[in-house]
């Protein structure tokens, strides 16, 4: 273990942190030391204990042992408020804003000394000043639900700055952002670091870590395995430190051998949650044995497309056929029973039931049919047996099948959903951001699984914002812009710029 040099002027030191959960040692004597003005990345496999460590730092959990020292002074936190008072702010993996309140109202929530009458002008002045200083443009009067994910994140950051955070923790902030938004976020982070804020940055995207961080602490199974300068390391080395073996960033695959059309979408129109057109006259066919990638900036109809196909959102007009059978505006079971798997974009809000056990989460799609169903009843022992197998096969890290899903780490929850959706030998797979939140090793495993499914004959619609993922998996790529497919390109690395342009709305005849 690295010995900390306590004479250094660290902004923050965490020393010997231990945190045990029933059946898991999430943090095992972790040391972490940060300089003022540093961007420090925390890397580690799914379930390595990153979020736990940060939850301790932000006062949400109490460590079983260990010490936190801020500017040379030992502190104890009994609640997030204590941490905020000491200048520590955390932007969580899942945002914690109140959707029906305005930006300004969210900022003052949880503040001790707001007094009885709110001084809105002063508040807005402060918000404007902070936004200006760090390039965090948001309208203080807007309601949270009206904002895009990227804007909501800006509000979270503003909130922390408003409460006087000097040490800012960002738990997988880029997982939900578009590439442009990531660039903006990085600009903000750099500006904050320049004026002496310390930033802890968690991400599974190694390129990002190399771009933004000064140093990296790598965690594996709750222990620190390395602390490295980004100036002296590579993507491959980081991956090896994390996973303990070499990781392939691009999986091998044979050329596709497309068969019959399985999923046919004809002239589809649909609205989004706000009643505005989300899909316009969209037509697309996915054949057996091919992966069709859908590229596009988030918010151009991706989620709506997946929802209409799987029966979760009504189609205004147009048709959806699976194996030639019309399932347009049929209940969700029509798609499920025809073997359409759906990996949803929102794993906590849609893809899982937080308080149900893992086996109960795993039968969500299969409980209607044997062997899980037994007449009117559910075969509980069969469900348990299958769950044990799936958890092993898909490498979901959990102490026990009878664990509520909410206690899984972000990446392990995603693996649980993948296990449920991919294990049923689906005819078609609608995969929305399937590797979001997964570590490098797990991403590789998922990519391999998707390709195996393709080779087995499944028709796969892969919706992703990650161009690397699309280029390495897809057999052809269509670009979605404002609810329309504005072009199709073959997945060739040299076409990245064209795809980028098309994602921004420029129609070009790429390739061929």
């Amino acid at each position, binding site marked *: 273990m690295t010995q900390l040099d306590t004479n250094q002027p660290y902004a923050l030191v965490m020393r010997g942190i231990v945190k045990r959960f029933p059946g898991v040692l999430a943090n095992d004597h972790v040391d972490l030391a940060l300089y003022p003005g540093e961007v420090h990345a925390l890397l580690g496999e799914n379930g390595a204990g990153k979020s736990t460590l940060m939850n301790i730092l932000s006062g*949400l*959990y109490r460590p079983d*042992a*260990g*010490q936190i020292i801020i500017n040379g*002074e*030992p*502190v*104890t936190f*009994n*609640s997030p*408020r204590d941490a905020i008072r000491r200048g520590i702010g955390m932007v969580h993996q899942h945002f914690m804003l109140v959707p029906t309140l305005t930006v300004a109202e969210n900022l003052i929530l949880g503040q001790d000394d707001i007094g009885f009458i709110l001084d809105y002008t002063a508040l807005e002045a402060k918000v404007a000043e902070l936004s200006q200083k760090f390039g965090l443009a948001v309208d203080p009067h807007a309601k949270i639900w009206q904002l895009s994910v990227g804007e909501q994140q800006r509000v979270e950051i503003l909130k922390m700055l408003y409460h006087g955070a000097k040490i800012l923790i960002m738990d997988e902030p880029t997982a939900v952002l578009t590439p442009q938004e990531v660039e903006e976020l990085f600009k903000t982070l750099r500006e904050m670091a320049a004026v002496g804020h310390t930033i802890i940055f968690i991400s599974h995207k190694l390129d990002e870590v190399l771009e933004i961080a000064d140093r990296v602490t790598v965690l594996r199974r709750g222990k620190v395995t390395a602390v490295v300068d980004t100036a002296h390391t590579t993507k491959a080395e980081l991956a090896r430190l994390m996973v303990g073996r070499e990781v392939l960033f691009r999986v091998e695959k044979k050329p596709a051998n497309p068969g019959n059309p399985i999923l046919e979408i004809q002239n589809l129109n649909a609205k989004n949650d706000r009643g505005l057109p989300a899909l316009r006259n969209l037509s697309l066919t996915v054949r057996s044995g091919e992966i069709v990638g859908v590229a596009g900036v988030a918010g151009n109809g991706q989620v709506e497309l997946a929802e209409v196909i*799987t*029966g*979760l959102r009504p189609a205004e007009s147009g048709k959806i056929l699976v194996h030639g059978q019309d399932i347009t505006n049929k*209940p*969700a*079971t029509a798609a*499920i029973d025809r073997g359409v798997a*759906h990996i*949803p974009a929102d794993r906590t*809000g*849609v*893809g*899982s*039931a*937080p*308080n*149900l056990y893992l086996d*109960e989460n795993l*039968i*969500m*799609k299969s*409980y*209607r049919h044997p062997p899980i*169903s037994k007449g*009117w*009843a*559910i075969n*509980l022992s069969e469900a348990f047996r299958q769950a044990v197998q799936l958890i092993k096969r898909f490498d979901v890290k959990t102490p026990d099948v009878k664990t509520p899903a909410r206690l899984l780490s972000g990446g392990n929850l995603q693996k649980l959903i993948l296990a449920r959706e991919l294990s049923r030998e689906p005819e078609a797979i609608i995969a929305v951001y399937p590797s979001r939140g997964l570590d490098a090793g797990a991403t590789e495993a998922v990519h391999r699984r998707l390709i195996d499914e393709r080779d087995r004959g499944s028709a796969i619609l892969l919706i992703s914002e990650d161009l690397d993922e699309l280029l390495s998996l897809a057999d052809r790529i269509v670009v979605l812009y404002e609810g329309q497919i504005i072009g199709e390109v073959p997945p060739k690395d040299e076409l990245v710029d064209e795809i980028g342009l098309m994602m921004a709305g420029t129609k070009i005849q790429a390739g061929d």
Partner: protein
Amino acid sequence: MRIKIEPRLIVPKWMSFLGLIAAILAALFFGGFLLSYGGLNPLVAYRQMFTDAFLRSYSPSDTLVKATPLLLAGLGVTVAFRMKLWNIGAEGQLLIGAWAASGVALFVMPPETPRPIMLLAMGVAGFLGGALWGLIPGILKAKLQVNEIISSLMLTYVAILFNNFFIYGPWSAGGFGLTRSFPRTGWFPRLLDFVDFVPAFRGMTAHIGFLIGLVAAVILAVLFRRSKWGYELKLIGDNPRAAEYAGVNLARHIMLAMFISGGLAGLAGMSEVAGVVHRLQENFSPGYGFTAIIVAWLARLNPLAVVLVAYLFGGLLVGGDSIQPAGIPLMIQGIIMFCVISADLLTRYRIRLVRPKSQELEALDTEVTAG
């Protein structure tokens, strides 16, 4: 010194159980003040209540009589609450169930109908009456997103007036607020009917309704645990969007749950008129449908626990009858509910007193805990 409230991450089972016990003790404690304010010695009054409710030879029978409607309606509430559908209109569904059963007994079936058929017809009518009354807020919620808390509660007042119209109007016996008595074939068998075989049953009015409730509780327990429907209820209760994603038809389940929930409350009403009052009359229910909410909640929506809690609350009502002024048992019930909800909150959150400390002290504190 400041008071801080913070959520607990994990609530152990024993803690919520202890919370319940503490809540009931606290309620009895505060109830004691009420009793002494009413001029009674609380200890004497409680002993009197306890003896009447549980220790006399008639106690089990009397307590069962009061427990029966609580059990059936409590099970009804449980069904809806399981999927976080807040049906608080069980009282209204109970009243309509009683009305429908009375109508069948008095005006539809001829008085000489054999008893099993008569009772079956009344039971079906009672269930359907309550079920349809529950279905109204169910449909409003499923189709128009109308808040079921308000609609089901409001319909309770409609039900009271609806019943009053009949018992003072077309069904009234001599202009009083009651109907004429049912034919004997519309009476539930009671223990005292078997006095020829078991002499000890003399004067015991417990009726078959409790057995019906017991069977319903066992069926629900099995359904909740083993059936697809029970799984779907749990899924909807935990995350409705995930349930939709799993292919569960939310609207249909809302309507079905309200139908069954109301039906069980309606059966409670039927059992009350067939087993106890033998006619429809004003105020025959002292708010059983509302107490049923407390019962279901205290039982943590577990149907078998509902049986036990209903019995205890039956005891509270019986014991309450033996003390004056009569409002006190109702107040104690209210206090129990209040304490139970507080206990729930207290087990989910932690309240701490924090002293503002000097920096040195705080640092010292850290050294000690980190030690």
